[in-house]
């Protein structure tokens, strides 16, 4: 309520604004947190026809690439033509390719939406899970846990679920640190700068730990630092998918707040948005989404940074359309990158992060060069 107070003070000056002048609108705005949509009001999304067309196209391409991901590999299998799949075909399709595809979808969607949320909240176009240090924090946390495991329990490996929790803890810790650093004056640019610094510190600490360790940890940790979908397994996928669906729908339910953050704090405040509360929520959502991605695949680069910009170019209208577009676009980028990573240099598999950068960055540069300022 502390944030809401200045609004009523300013009300006389800003009486030209219809929404604040109207007492009914004001009361509904100030009590926004009290009747959050998922408490019964239901979700209504504003999706213009143009956005629907673009989203439909994105979904279609995503479905095609997913089919391709299921079909391509050392063993060509047509997933649409499976009358009597052999045991080997079943194994490859359902035990190897499907978990990997699912993980790719989850990781891509989570990262892109996390990037979009962070860019909207900070209004800084280079904000992304990797830039703000969330991904590095998660990576550092995983390495710390591996290191402690080596020192205390003789290198007994943690379960994938344990790793996932460690990643979440790391991302949230970095987030709290950043929020703490920028709380004093709420300077968002400063926060992004602090994020860059924290990312650098986390990277340095990871290198330090790897050097201090008995070196076989470097090999285990490497996979968390470069990003790969190879370790996809159904047990962890179930958790990641559930968490991803939950957080994505929470973000979607919160889209109105997100739409306001894209304006400015003053406008938000004048619209009666309790800035601090919903901001904390949204940052937490971004941290959670980042943690899902890191826990599932390690640090996959560029997705959170590039995809939101690409989607803004393709489908410029409205936050809900952007959110859905980002989820589809991120998933598309990661799955397509993984198809290349798996098939380009058979029998060798490359880390998916190499190809997210190799595909994502040229697309980004091309689109950025084509249009003027975003």
């Amino acid at each position, binding site marked *: 309520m502390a944030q809401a107070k200045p609004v009523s003070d300013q009300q006389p000056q800003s009486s030209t604004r219809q929404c604040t002048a109207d007492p009914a609108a004001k009361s509904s705005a100030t009590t926004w947190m009290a009747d959050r949509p998922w408490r019964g009001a239901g979700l209504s999304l504003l999706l213009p026809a143009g956005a629907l067309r673009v989203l439909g196209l994105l979904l279609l391409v995503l479905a095609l690439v997913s089919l391709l991901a299921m079909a391509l*590999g*050392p*063993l060509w299998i047509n997933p649409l033509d499976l009358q009597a799949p052999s045991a*080997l075909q079943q*194994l*490859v399709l359902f*035990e*190897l*390719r499907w*978990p990997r595809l699912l993980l790719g979808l989850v990781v891509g969607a989570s990262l892109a939406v996390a990037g979009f949320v962070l860019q909207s909240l900070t209004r800084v176009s280079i904000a992304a899970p990797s830039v703000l240090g969330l991904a590095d924090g998660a990576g550092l946390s995983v390495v710390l846990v591996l290191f402690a495991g080596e020192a205390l329990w003789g*290198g007994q*490996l943690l379960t*994938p679920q344990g790793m996932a929790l460690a990643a979440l803890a790391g991302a949230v810790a970095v987030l709290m640190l950043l929020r703490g650093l920028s709380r004093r004056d709420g300077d968002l640019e400063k926060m992004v700068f602090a994020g860059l610094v924290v990312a650098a510190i986390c990277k340095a600490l990871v290198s330090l730990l790897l*050097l*201090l360790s*008995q*070196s*076989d940890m470097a*090999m*285990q940790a*490497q*996979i968390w630092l470069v990003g*790969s979908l*190879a*370790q*996809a*397994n159904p*047990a962890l996928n179930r958790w990641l998918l559930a968490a991803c669906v939950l957080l994505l729908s929470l973000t979607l339910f919160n889209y109105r707040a997100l739409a306001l953050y894209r304006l400015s704090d003053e406008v938000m405040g004048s619209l009666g948005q309790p800035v601090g509360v919903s901001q904390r929520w949204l940052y937490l959502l971004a941290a959670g989404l980042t943690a899902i991605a890191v826990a599932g695949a390690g640090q996959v680069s560029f997705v959170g940074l590039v995809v939101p910009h690409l989607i803004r170019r393709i489908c410029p209208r409205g936050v809900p359309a952007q959110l859905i577009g980002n989820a589809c676009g991120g998933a598309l980028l990661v799955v397509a990158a993984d198809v290349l990573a*798996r098939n380009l240099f*058979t*029998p*060798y*598999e*490359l*880390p998916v992060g190499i190809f997210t950068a190799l595909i994502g960055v040229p697309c980004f540069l091309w689109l950025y060069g084509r249009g003027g300022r975003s």
Partner: protein
Amino acid sequence: MNALRLSLKLLSHWLTLRLLALVLPILLVPILVLSLSVAAYASEDATALRVVTLSNDSTEALLALGLKPVGATRSLNGQPWYPHIAAQMQGVTVVGLENAPNLELIASLQPDLILGSRQQSARLRATLERIAPTVLVRDSRKGWQQNFLLFARALGQEQAGIKRLAQVQARIQCLKQALQQQPLRQVSVLRFNPGQVRLYQLDSFSGELFAALGLTRPASQNVHAYGVNNFSSERIAELEADWLFYFTYGARRQQSTLLYREAFMSDPAWQQLSVVRHNRVQSLDDVIWNTANGILAAGVALDQIPQLFSLAVPEGGALCRSSVKD
């Protein structure tokens, strides 16, 4: 009378028939079972076992037992196989890298068994188990003898494995005696990595070999651990020993690593080491002594011992050659 004899005859015939009917199954069943199980054993014979190996030490274990994997990961720095196993690995499918095996390719080889190490493949274990039973040793670089026996047991070749290992151990004992007869028995081991030096300690492949040969180590290397990364040039004095051996990382010997090695070796402290002044510094093959970790590499390493330590080799023969040549 006739009727009686006839009936007796019939009775005896009937009895013999009954007896046969009783005995035949008793005789036949074990024979059948035996022959079936022999047939089953023959078809599941280890030579017909389709094995995929995910680490070089497991590949070498297979080769040492006279088997051949259907698929194996590329040797670290190999192209794709290390020179000392390349001839035996003709026709084996490469299934990716040790730290990034191609699971689909492995599945398409339809293996009966997968061998590897936890240090590399633990995170993939759940998926590997869905492809085939998987046996992973804890760490390829530590305890190569126990690791070899574990692989042999997994392959159903425990006795052959024990026998094969005993040959190597006999050679080690023989060489150990030869080494005891000369005074220079302390060895120092380090490796030039890109941009850093690593000191090796007892729980490494070379450390275990040297220890088994009865050789001692300077204090900072006489520790039960793998090694020390980023060994500083300020600690060069700790390297003092009767012999100093070094590996150089990489098959293709990056120029930067060579330059780094040169700089390290031109350090005044290095020049002052008595082992350097006595010219007892030697380069060891990084593959054989450090990254292969297998029983075949151990054999090649033992072959090099007489020459490395300038041991007297009997005329026209080799010192401590195994009687059975593999």
